[in-house]
Structures are given as structure tokens and as C-alpha cells.
């Protein structure tokens, strides 16, 4: 059996996390899932942090990386590793809202980071594109 086919409903925290997630989605215009330090570095880069603070959209960043959170000029939902795993599983299971952006790249599909690497977009343009 593929170890990846984990049933998230067997995780005891999934109900509480999905309820919190529902609230966050309800209260936000955009929810950015920043699961790695690379994602947080991207968001806390001064140019991007400015873009995030000047938008009139209510943005919530979900992260397990708590050190740099104070640099983020958005709402932050700090979660544990377990909670992040449940959230990612939900988002990879289906689309519960069109407000969600998962910053992490994947080997399973293309991403805007490819445009940045190829010089088609800057990092700032990528963040703006996520927000628009």
C-alpha cells in the first residue's frame, strides 16, 4: 500500500484543524501556506513584505516557521508540524476554497517559481500575481 495514501481523518487533530481552517478562510481574502523556511524568506524579503502590507486584501499566512513571523506584515496563523501536515493533506485532497495559495514547489507540476528562475517574472511580480 502506498504510504502516501494516508487517511487524514485518522489524525486526531484533523477535526479541530479543519474547523480553524474554515474560520481563517472565512476571515481572509487570501491564505498563503508557507510550509518551509524558503517560503518565509520569500515573503519576508523587504520588497515582497511591502507588497503584502500595501494590498487592501486581508491575507493570512499559515506557517510552522515562527522565528521570522514578526517580519510578516500580515495575519499569521502559527501551526505545529502535525497541524501543517493535516492542512497540506486537506489542500492536496481537494480545493476547499479558491483563496488558498501553496507556496511550496512540487515535482508533480509547474509553478511560477519557474518563471522567476528563467527571468520571466521577478520575485516581486510573482508575489503580486499571487495576491491579485
Amino acid at each position, binding site marked *: 500500500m502506498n504510504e502516501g495514501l494516508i487517511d487524514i481523518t485518522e489524525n486526531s487533530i484533523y477535526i479541530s484543524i479543519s474547523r480553524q481552517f474554515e474560520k481563517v478562510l472565512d476571515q481572509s481574502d487570501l491564505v498563503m501556506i508557507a510550509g518551509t523556511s524558503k517560503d518565509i524568506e520569500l515573503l519576508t524579503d523587504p520588497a515582497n513584505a511591502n507588497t503584502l502590507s500595501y494590498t487592501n486584501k486581508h491575507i493570512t499566512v499559515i506557517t510552522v516557521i515562527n522565528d521570522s513571523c514578526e517580519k510578516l506584515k500580515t495575519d499569521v496563523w502559527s501551526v505545529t508540524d502535525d497541524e501543517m501536515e493535516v492542512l497540506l493533506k486537506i489542500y492536496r485532497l481537494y480545493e476547499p476554497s479558491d483563496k488558498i495559495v501553496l507556496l511550496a514547489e512540487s515535482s508533480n507540476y*509547474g509553478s511560477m517559481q519557474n518563471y522567476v528562475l528563467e527571468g520571466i517574472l521577478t520575485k516581486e511580480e510573482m508575489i503580486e500575481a499571487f495576491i491579485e
Partner: protein
Amino acid sequence: MEQSYFNEMEENLRTFRKNLDNKQVFLFGHCEATLVLADLLKREGICPEAILDNSEAKQGQVLDGIRVISPNSILEFGSDQTIVLIVTRFYEAMNSQLRKAGYRGDILKLVDYNTYAEYSLQSNTIERKLERVRFGWQKLEELKTEYINAFMVFCPFNALGDVYFAMSYLPAFMKKRKVDSVAVCVPSNSCANVVRLFGIENVCVLKQKELDAVIQAVIYTQDKNCFIAHQDRPYIIKLHNALRHKCIPLEQIYCCGVYGLKSDTEPVIPYGWKEWADLETIKKDRSVILSPYAKSVTAIRDEIWSEITDHYNNMGYEIYTNVCGDEKPLPGTRPLSAKLNEMKSIVERAGTFIGIRSGLCDIIRTADCRKIALYPDYNYSDTKWKAIDMYSIAGFENILVEDGDTWEKIIRK
């Protein structure tokens, strides 16, 4: 619009027909599918009141004979006097937007395009989606058994042009990923025929909802031996967002965005061509192949095609209409039905191809003949870019057809 979706829309319209009585009918989302619905409604004697659209550029205009207004404008009409019909894949987002705005009238989804989305985090939704992923995962395991050791590539959407681009850059991507053997899964036989043009033997056709479930399983399990070769489906792929900021031609989206290749990567030219058996019946270099039909594009006026036919008739050309299934040849032309891999031989024999910009234009892009692609005046998806900016093809005369244009004016552009 794909026939299966059209049938679903027609059937749902029949089922919910009574709901429309004595109501002002609004359609949400100005796109090809909505315009097909509008045509269907008009045939039923129902004139849509307006199209709701979030694009400020479109609001206030009359497009295709129907005024476009902001979604919130529906609140000016009574909820019990109105009904909203949706035939786009953004049903969930649109439904949510209207409800949040305070709209209490009926909102009907007439086509289920999007099996990936459900805007709920209730346990029963999650359980249902888990069931779908289990089904998808089982199908994926079956595919892996059939195509042992093959890297699996999925083309989620039934569009020939998308599959063409995906295949033309796939070899470079395989080299980058150090992959020797590949199997490609597509949602239709036509797409499978496009894949075969590139010499790929391992092609599998899955029904759309089955394919969606397999793709969801790939996303859920993050299977390292699988790749989804599309630029905006499903939901987790956000390449499309870049178009709100910049006009990136579709071919570059596939090369750089989808596959992460360098911009100067050369695409592979397809080579799985066959000569049409009845080639000799076409007058060499004195024939025209017309392609007026495209499922995901607003049609070009009949008058234009009529003028084209007259023009070439007067020059003594033989004129053919490329038809498929129930499609009818244009008046004054002969029908021509051939396989995709025969089309290159046909257009080269004829000498001239004139078609509405569609996937077929991508298929024959390397044909050695005069090729004209006509672009109806519409924006690509929900972006501010014109389709001609996104889809122009090298080697073609790419011509925008605007309101009031005649063939004489078009050919001089």
C-alpha cells in the same frame, strides 16, 4: 464546448426549465460556455437579462448582444424575481461570491466541470473526497502495472493545443528528469492522437472524471514518478496567476512555466504523420481547407466564411470544410473528414488552410503551405490579454477579426 458538457448542460436546462419561468435570468462569467448557454436559452425563447462578470473591462459593455454587469448589480433586482445560471468551472467561487454579497435567489450549476472543488470543510465532504482519492489511487496503481517503470504524465484537459505543447517539450523535460520511459494519460481519443504524433506509444485514454481522480491521487500522494502537464488545471497549479500581470505566450507557459525549461529550448517537431489515402482527389495548390469550428472559441460570423468561400470560388479553387462528427460543411464547400495525422498531407496538397484559431492550427503548424489563423476578438480566459497575443503561431498569418470586418478587410490586415 465539448459535446459531453453540452449534453449535460442541455439536460440540466431541461430538468430545471420550470425554475426559469417568470424569472429574470442572469448568467455568471462571460466565456464561451456561457455564450453557448445564452444561444440555447434564446432558442427556448428566454432572453438572458445580463451576464455577471468580475472583469471591470467588460462591465458596462454589450458583448454578443447581452449586457455585462458587475455581479453585485444583481442585488438591485429582487432575489425571488431572478435566477443565476453558471456553466463555468468556477461555480464554487461564483456561488460563494453571490451569497456573501447577500444574494438569496436560486443559483444553478448546469455543468459539473470541476470535480476538484467543493467549498466546504465538513467531515462528510472530506470523507467523500478521500473516497475519490482512493478510487484515483487504485486507477493509478493499475496504470503503473500496465506501464511498468514508465514515468506517468497526465494531460488533464481535453484541448488539442495544450496536449500539443505538452508533448513538444516533453522530451526535453524527460532529459532534465533523467527519465527513459513515459506513458501519457489524456481525456479523449483526439488528444491521444496528438500524443502519437510525437511517437509516444504508451498512451491511455481515461474518462474525464476518472482522470481527475487519478490526478488528485497524484497530488495527494506526491508520487515522484508522475507529472501533471498543464498550465492551470487542476486548482493547485497557479501558473495562470502570472497572466494577470504579464502576457506570456501559451507556448512559453508550457516550456518554462510547466516544465521549468530554458526559454530557448527547442520543441520537438511531430513526425507521426500519414498521407491521406484520397490525396489525389484534392486539386494540388488550388484548393483551400477551411476550419470554421472550434469547441472552446467564440465563432466567427457566417458572413465571413461565406465571403471566403465566394472569394476562392471566383478564383477557381476547390473548397473543403474540415468536419468532424455532426459538423456540417459550409455552404458551397465539400466536407472533408480525415484523421489528425493525415491533416498535414491534406493542407500541403491543398496549398491553403484558413481556420479559426484552434488546436488544429497547432497540429498543422509545421505544414508547408499558406496558413491563416483567424482570431475572434476575445480575451484569453479571464485575463486582459487578447487571444491573438497569447496564441499567435509562427509560420501562420495571424489575423484578428473585429466587429464589422469583411473578408476583404481581413486579408489586407
